[in-house]
């Protein structure tokens, strides 16, 4: 693959994850993928900014992978965004290190597809809640790819996980071209 892909994976309780962790496991087995398991690397919430920025420089595509909690990412994902994407590195003049790279969100949600709609329990389309992440990437000059979404992931049958994983791998392969 010409274009190595960096996956930033944030799952605070991976041992209980029904889908997300298997996606990450399968993805990191691919040779053009580098995965950073943020909760494993930084269990005390202290992110190594220099190392993360260096990794970003070395990859042509960036994936934020996380379970959706309370209409957002787990807190370490936000901490990563806040500390790594600094003025002078990713935006605000200077290096513009992310400009021109591909960006994708890969998200699993507990609620099903129908729960995310105007007037439904979750009040709005899922895209509403992913917008802040995509806007962040856009602000840094990245190309936004369609998100990879698995809904109702808390109730998915184990037999279905395999197929979802294959779909994820093909999306990643597309990013890597």
């Amino acid at each position, binding site marked *: 693959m010409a274009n190595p892909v960096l996956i930033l994976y944030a*799952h*605070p*309780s*991976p*041992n*209980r*994850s*029904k*889908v*997300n962790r298997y996606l990450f496991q399968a993805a990191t087995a691919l040779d053009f993928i580098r995965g950073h398991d943020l*909760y*494993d*690397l930084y*269990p*005390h919430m202290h992110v190594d900014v220099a190392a993360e920025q260096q990794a970003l420089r070395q990859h042509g595509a960036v994936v934020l992978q996380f*379970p959706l909690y309370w209409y957002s990412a787990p807190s*370490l994902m936000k901490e990563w965004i806040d500390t790594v994407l600094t003025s002078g590195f990713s935006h605000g003049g200077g290096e513009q290190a992310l400009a021109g790279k591909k960006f994708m969100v890969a998200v*699993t*949600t*507990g609620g099903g597809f129908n729960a995310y709609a105007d007037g439904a329990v979750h009040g709005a389309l899922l895209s509403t809640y992913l917008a802040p992440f995509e806007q962040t990437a856009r602000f840094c000059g990245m190309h936004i790819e369609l998100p990879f979404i*698995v809904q109702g*992931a*808390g109730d*998915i049958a184990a037999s279905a996980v395999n197929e979802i994983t294959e779909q994820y791998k093909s999306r990643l392969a597309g990013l890597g071209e």
Partner: protein
Amino acid sequence: MVGTSQEFLEVALTYLVAAILIVPLFKRLGLGTVLGYLVAGMAIGPAGLGLIADVHATLSFSEFGVVLLMFLIGLELNPSKLWQLRKPIFGLGSAQVFVSVALLGGIGIFAGVPIIAALAMAAALSFSSTPIALQALQERGQSGSMAGQSAFSMLLFQDIAVIPMLAIVPLFAVTTAGDSGFTLMEFGQVIAVFVGIIVGGRYLLRPIFRYIAATKMREVFTAFSLLLVIGTGLLTQYAGLSMALGTFMAGVLLAESEYRHELELNIEPFKGLLLGLFFMAVGMSVDLVLILEKPLIIIALTLGFMALKAVVLYGVGAFAGHCRSDRILLAILLAQGGEFAFVLIALVLSVGLVAPNLAALMVVVATCSMFLTPFILWAHDKILMPVLSKGSERATDIEANEGHVIVAGFGRFGQIIGRLLLSLKVPVTVVDHDPNHIEFLRKFDYKVFYGDASRLDLLEAAGAGRAKLLVLAIDDAEKLLQTAELVNKHFPDLPVLARAKNRGDVAKLFNAGVVGVRREMFASSLEIGELALKELGYSAHQAHKTVMKFRGYDENMLKASAAFRDDEKSLIDYAKRSRILLEQLMDQDREELSKPHKDW
């Protein structure tokens, strides 16, 4: 037969009672155990109560303690470590011996003693006392320090140098003697013994040890350990070498064997007892009659002799690059005459090289110098070091700081805090009462002040009235609490953070008004606990959160239990109840975690 064995037991009883009565007392008084043994020996010896008559037999028997000591030292040093020490051993060691011999011999010749006799006596007196010096180093925990290494190197060189000296002296025999020193045969014997020890140590001992260890009979292992040391000692002595050197070599060869710790445990008590006996024998052999006859001459000779050796040692220390306080320590540690003086002087006397009255005088001088060493060391610790350390940085110099942080105690604990604050350019005033610490830290450009933080005047001098914060990182828990109480009384506005040894201290410190307390082992133990959970399959973050939760519960319990500190029964009740509560709380978390997949 019954009579002699009873006699033996009576003598043993005398030694044991004297040691038990006097040695702990001296240790309590801070004078060191060596001096205790010496005084105990003096008390029961011919000069004192006269309970023991045959001093010489005791002395030569107990010299075996020195041999055991050298064996144990050998066990601590494997061949590669010994090889690293080759420069100090031969460089510093030979410098010390040759310069001392030249000076002492020169004085002897100047005083009219025949050249050969003067040199022989000078050689005898140039040696120091291995047990006194090493015991003193061990008691102050400095065996591994730089000064300790240099002292040890010089002592080891002396052990080597005594061999040719013992061999050469008979060559100058005035009285006819059949033995004319080293022959080619004997040289061959020496080589054979050395090769024997090395080959045996490498290839023979392990299988034997394994065989004996397999019997699982402790006393047989002890017996074999002793047999090994005594056997090696006698073998080397038979070859004309010093026993101590032979057993030292055996120790070095066994330093890497898996039986090392077992050997140490077995030999250690014998060494301790025999060394005690040796010190007592030295105490007993103080010739009070001679001292009373010519007190002034003997005092002058002893002090002059020690001063001369001390100057040489100080110079050697400077050459080795030691700091001033280490040089002074080295000079005091090795300035005395040693047990080799007795052996060599006896030999010199037996071949008729020296007049008996001169030999007796020199033996008294050597004994007196051994006797004086613990006193001088005591004075060094209690009087000289405090003065020297104060001299270079006066307490009044501290006053420059304002709005600073005072860190009291700058060992491993305080240093971490100090490094953090200094890296942030926070003005820090460090107070420590260990002169060695201070000297060491000054080399790294730390501004460290000598003093006992539990003293009000020192706290005032360190600017406790104007400081922002006091961090108590002193190792001594009692002193730390005293200081906290003192500060609470006299500087109630100064916030204090304190290190605590254990749970009990935490409550006391909070009651003394300390704003923050941390148990010294707690955080690092929890960190290992966190790693353990991770190894057991917890995710890294989950392990961290679980440990933090445990930490929170534990600290809350600790705070609550401070209320019961004066009522032991309620405290124990509370501790029991809270342990059950803690288990319940952690159980809930665990169940929560082990529930089937709930997350996406």
